[in-house]
């Protein structure tokens, strides 16, 4: 049986939540009552106290009690009821934009692409009958069967090579690594067999393959399961490397990756799988793709530019919200693609804000932030910098296990805030 969430059904037919609609009706009536002539019975009933002894137990909730809570929720005051049009506008509840988790976004993207093109298939450990180690491929095996969704034995080098060979013969495989830490066993196939082949053959042999899986730090999985590979894969020509943050990124980038005729590495994040985001109607369409190689300005600002990818984008937005209260407006850029890097977007932002901070979960040496620093220095934006570029990165150690140590091994919101204030000399 299909598991479809309520939010999805409501979002598809564009219906509001019942409680919200009832609240709107209450407040609408309340406003009407207030606007009537003085002495209207409805108004007298609002404040009336019933005579006689109160019954035992908790006092019954009266209309005013409920309406007070409603008004607080919506954010209106009694005085505002006088203006009918404005009152109506403020209490109106819109249907909520569909909330989709990153996991479901990836699942839907793969489902739609499997349906669209017969040559697409998924292989990896536990992707079929187990529904995916992190449930990203839930339901796909039931729908498409053994031919399109293939469970492999634990042989990364072997099955990555098999996926590349299938791509060379014209199929469009999605090769899942349970985490990118295990891709190190197969990295020869990714780089030497997939990435370099189109160039070595002078365009005779294409390799339309997608390598995807969770990348970077998780929670309590310790050193061998927490490495970020953005810098390693981002180093190699012939590869495209993307790193989605939210659900829309995940959907659009994975679809673009599958439709691309070249090897693409999709670095997901395990901690983001369960996080839900609003996705616009456009973002839910079957042909929604995000171009590889374009960054997105998630939040405009004037004082400092924060550039990040994957989970850290969320941290940057949270830091920006805190700093906004102090009057510092941060411009937050979501890289979306690691290779090719969208330097133009970063440069345009630096020209505006004059301060740049890069935020990443990976290690500092030879990392994504290091590359951004070098590119900014080599480009026109250098002359617009009022301070050196700052890199906020993971601590330069293998990931420890104990919670307090792990928490202090990757950038926290306070680190970003601290760096912003430092660079702005505050």
């Amino acid at each position, binding site marked *: 049986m299909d598991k479809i969430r309520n939010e999805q059904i409501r979002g598809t037919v564009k219906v509001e939540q019942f409680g919200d609609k009832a609240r709107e009706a209450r407040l609408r009536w309340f406003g009407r009552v207030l606007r009537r002539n003085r002495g209207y019975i409805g108004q007298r009933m609002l404040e009336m106290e019933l005579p006689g002894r109160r019954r035992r137990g908790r006092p019954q909730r009266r209309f005013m009690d409920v309406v007070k809570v409603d008004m607080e929720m919506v954010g209106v005051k009694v005085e505002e009821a006088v203006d009918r049009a404005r009152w109506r506008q403020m209490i109106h509840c819109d249907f909520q934009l569909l909330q989709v988790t990153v996991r479901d976004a990836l699942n839907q993207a793969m489902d739609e692409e499997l349906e669209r093109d017969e040559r697409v*298939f998924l292989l990896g450990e536990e992707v079929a009958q187990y529904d995916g180690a992190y449930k990203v491929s839930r339901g796909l095996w039931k729908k498409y069967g053994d*031919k399109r969704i*293939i469970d*492999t*034995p634990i*042989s990364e*080098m*072997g*099955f*990555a*090579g*098999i*996926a*590349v*060979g*299938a*791509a*060379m*013969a*014209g*199929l469009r495989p999605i090769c899942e690594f349970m985490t990118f830490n295990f891709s190190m066993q197969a990295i*020869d*196939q990714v780089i*030497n*067999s997939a990435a370099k*082949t*189109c*160039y*070595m*053959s*002078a*365009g*005779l*042999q*294409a*390799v*339309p393959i997608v390598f995807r899986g969770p990348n970077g730090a998780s929670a309590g999985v310790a050193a061998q399961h927490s490495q970020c590979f953005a810098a390693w894969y981002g180093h190699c*020509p*012939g590869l*495209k490397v993307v790193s989605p943050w939210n659900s829309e990124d995940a959907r659009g980038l994975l679809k673009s990756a599958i439709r691309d*005729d*070249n090897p693409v590495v999709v670095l997901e994040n395990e901690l983001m799988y369960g996080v839900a985001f609003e996705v616009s109607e456009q973002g839910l369409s079957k042909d929604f793709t995000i171009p590889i190689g374009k960054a997105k300005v998630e939040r405009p600002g004037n004082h400092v530019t924060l550039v990040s990818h994957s989970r850290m984008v969320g941290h940057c937005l949270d830091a920006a919200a805190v700093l906004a209260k102090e009057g510092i407006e941060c411009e937050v850029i979501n890289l979306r693609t690691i290779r*090719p890097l969208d330097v133009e977007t970063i440069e345009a932002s630096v020209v505006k804000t004059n301060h740049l901070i890069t935020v990443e979960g990976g290690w500092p040496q030879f990392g994504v932030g290091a590359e951004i620093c070098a590119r900014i220095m*080599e*480009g026109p934006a250098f002359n617009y910098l009022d301070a050196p570029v700052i890199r906020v990165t993971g601590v330069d150690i293998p990931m420890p296990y104990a919670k307090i140590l792990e928490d202090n091994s990757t950038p926290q919101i306070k680190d970003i805030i601290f760096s912003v204030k430092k660079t702005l000399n505050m």
Partner: protein
Amino acid sequence: YENLMTVLKNISIVFNLLLCTHPFKKCELHRLDQGPPTQALLTREQGLKYYRTMQTMRRMELKADQLYKQKIIRGFCHLYDGQEACAVGIEAGINPSDHLITAYRAHGYTYTRGVSVKEILAELTGRRGGVAKGKGGSMHMYAKHFYGGNGIVGAQVPLGAGLALACQYKGNNEVCVTLYGDGAANQGQIFESFNMAALWKLPCIFICENNKYGMGTSVERASASTDYFKRGDFIPGLKVDGMDVLTVREATKFAADYCRSGKGPILMELETYRYHGHSMSDPGVSYRTREEIQEVRSKSDPISMLKDRMISNNMASLEEIKEIDVEIRKEIEEAAQFATSDPEPPLEELCNHIFYNEPPMEVRGTNPWSKLKSIS
């Protein structure tokens, strides 16, 4: 049977079509009840074709040797002379629509899979007329249904299993021939490929070209078990004399039929020998004796064996063979001439073909002001 053969022989003389039946030694089998047939039919046309192909390959490799010593070819150059029967026999046993992938000793297979000698030599000399426009070199030549030419030892075996998976997926009754050497046979990824190929019954013919030496290490010093045809364990295997083109052909046909019938992968070990060292930088005599090389050359050379067989069965005359040799020599000379005179690839092409089917993009050069153009 005798009468039939006499009648046929008489008819064939009239129609200038000579047949010969050829008995060869039985193949050693692993997990197989029956092996390939012990007799093969060779028509004159086939014989001449195999001879011509093998001789062309031989002369091509010797020309490459010459060019390398003149420093016109540089880098890696792994020569195939001595092993011609393998490439020609395999090609005769499969269809052009089947797939083939091998490692770096690939010039022979590049030729049998349809690339001209001219394009091969020009690729070795790094000129724009090369099959990969000079971008690939000795180890990275590609053609239709030929996937190289792979430099990383053993990496081509999972790729071959993947090609077989694609054949199975598309249901087109094609097979994939995946070649590797005795040195690569100890790579872990090969056993991973065996496991998955057997599990999913992929139509993959794994072929181990055992030329007795992995670079400078003999098979006894490298492998705990030198029965490479048995190393597939649960995969049936056969050991074949790789110096006899007909034996290789019949064994390949047998293997291809096995795979096409959906029984899964099969493993073939070809016993063969390379005259040159591992590559041009290896003289090839520090780990084996000159006597050994000489003995193989005189007793088991694939081209001589085929020539002798054809002449002794009156399928061709010595003059005919000599004529073919002269033609081939001329062809190789012309190709070498092209390969040495063709210009090198233009610098504008430096950054092309990084991606397939991609709009033009900019690539960083050696310094920040150098912005190079890349089209696909």
